[in-house]
């Protein structure tokens, strides 16, 4: 192809690039430019003057507390999701269970990881709400009032428990291939060398798995951080997490400064972006062992 005349190359190159033009135009119009518009807007005053004031204003108590509770919920639900998800993935890969349990759990995980949003909130209200199944069951059968312990579904704990419903399956789906990648030979080799099960996990399996584990946890973190529908349907606007604050800001400029809203959005992009970059980097490390 390189031997063809230059005009031919040019025409061919132009056609080549025209082929992905629709996609690029779409991406620019509906993904990149809208995002950049907000990012730029975060550094300007409403009159068009360059400023860092919007970013500085993020560090006021209301907004900081919103970020803090968002980070707490995302962290707790990703940690819980990672732990239980790991335990489940371990059980179906290495637990010696019948194979129908494995395929059943993986299919269910595919469904449950997509069962988010408003209906998920309804499911947990019907279960752990004030007249939910579990609440009523405990009260009638054990005389135990769940809500007297300070538990409230419309709170940090409630939201965390609810988010784990889609976090755990996601962890199972991503971690199962990683656990499948643990070769039997490694285990046998360490056993022959006299290692105990604990030593095998601590010195062989875990060092191989930790990039997958940590990386997936970061993915879960970002996943929870950007979610709004479940939280909004569950708590209305009583729990002040960042997506709900941003929702209120878009609806009615509750911060009384449109550009502060852009800064709020920028903060979200920075946090989800950072966790995703770390995830990609850890994933590349993890894949070295999965060949």
């Amino acid at each position, binding site marked *: 192809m390189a031997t063809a005349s230059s005009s031919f190359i040019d025409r061919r190159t132009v056609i*080549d690039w025209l*082929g*992905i033009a*629709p*996609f690029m135009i*779409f991406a620019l*119009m*509906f*993904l*990149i*430019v*809208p*995002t950049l*518009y*907000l990012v730029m*807007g975060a550094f300007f005053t409403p009159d068009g003057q360059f400023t860092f004031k919007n970013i500085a204003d993020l560090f006021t108590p209301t907004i900081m507390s919103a970020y803090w509770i968002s980070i707490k919920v995302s962290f707790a639900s990703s940690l819980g999701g990672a732990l*239980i998800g790991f335990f489940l993935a*371990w*059980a179906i890969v*290495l*637990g010696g*269970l019948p194979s129908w*349990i494995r395929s059943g759990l993986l*299919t*269910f995980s*595919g*469904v*449950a990881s*997509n069962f988010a*949003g*408003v*209906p998920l*909130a*309804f*499911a*947990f*209200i*019907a*279960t*752990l709400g004030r007249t*939910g*199944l*579990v609440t009523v069951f405990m009260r009638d059968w054990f005389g135990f009032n769940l809500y007297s312990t300070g538990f409230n579904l419309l709170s940090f704990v409630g939201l965390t428990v609810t988010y784990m*419903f889609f976090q*755990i399956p996601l962890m199972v789906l991503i971690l199962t291939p990683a656990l499948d990648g643990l070769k039997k030979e490694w285990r046998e080799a360490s056993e022959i060398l006299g290692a105990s099960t604990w030593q095998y996990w601590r010195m062989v399996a875990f060092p191989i798995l930790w990039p997958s584990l940590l990386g997936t946890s970061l993915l879960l973190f*970002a996943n929870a951080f*950007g979610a*709004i*529908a479940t939280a*909004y*349907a569950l708590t209305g606007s009583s729990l002040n997490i960042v*997506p709900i604050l941003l*929702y209120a800001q*878009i609806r009615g400029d509750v911060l009384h400064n449109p550009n502060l*809203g852009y800064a709020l*959005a920028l903060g*979200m*992009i920075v946090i989800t*972006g950072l966790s*995703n970059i770390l995830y990609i980097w850890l994933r590349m490390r993890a894949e070295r062992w999965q060949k």
Partner: protein
Amino acid sequence: MKMTKFFAWLAIAIGLIYFFVPLLGTFEFSLRMRRGEYSFDAYDSVFSDVQFQQTFGFSILMALFTIAFGMLLVVPTAYWVRLRLPQMRPVVEFVTLMPLVIPAIVIVFGYLRLYNSSSYIPFTGSTFGTNVLLVMSYITLSLPYMYRSVDTAMRTIDVRTLTEAAEILGAKWPTILFKCIFPNVMSGVLSGAFITFAIVMGEFTMAALLNRPAFGPYLQLVGANKAYEPSALAVIAFAMTWLSMGLIQLVSRLSKMAPARSA
């Protein structure tokens, strides 16, 4: 070994309790509408609600448009990148994954500022324009899933040989695309379509902020105002997700049984 098995069963038991109690709770709650006995009254109430029918219909329509236009965008792009622009592969893949990184609420916030009625491209100035913008936002949201499923399906066929064979036989570009490429990646197109359907039907943020009467905002509204209907709706939504995922599994199993025709 015995210990391992015990802990494995323990893990499954914990998972089973965590996942099935909420589903059971929802189902039980949805039956409680009539005092003192179980009934399907809540479902009756849901299905006979005009707003349910309208928003459900609207969302199905939006989902179909999203799938049709999304696939028209994704399949030729994935094909072209494989055939002519392999060097652009990382870039295109990165772009398709961006909607997983940028939260939906941020994307729609950008739309509202960029395409409001006083801008150069006033999408939100008319109902039709807003609907178009909603479909575009859904395509954006489902881009990661559509692209990955189509690209995976394309990996199993030899795009280059197929194209050359068609060219030798005198086929033009539309023929190659719609008669050779599309049918061969049908399994990917279908599984991408089902997951897109599941996403669009439950989506809340985009539709609520663009003020369109979709199923997601309707769910939220019912949740804020009614007692038993939300549970019935959650059961229906779960059944729909299950159906979509079941169809994906079915498609992938069928496509495995019938090997690609190019092989």
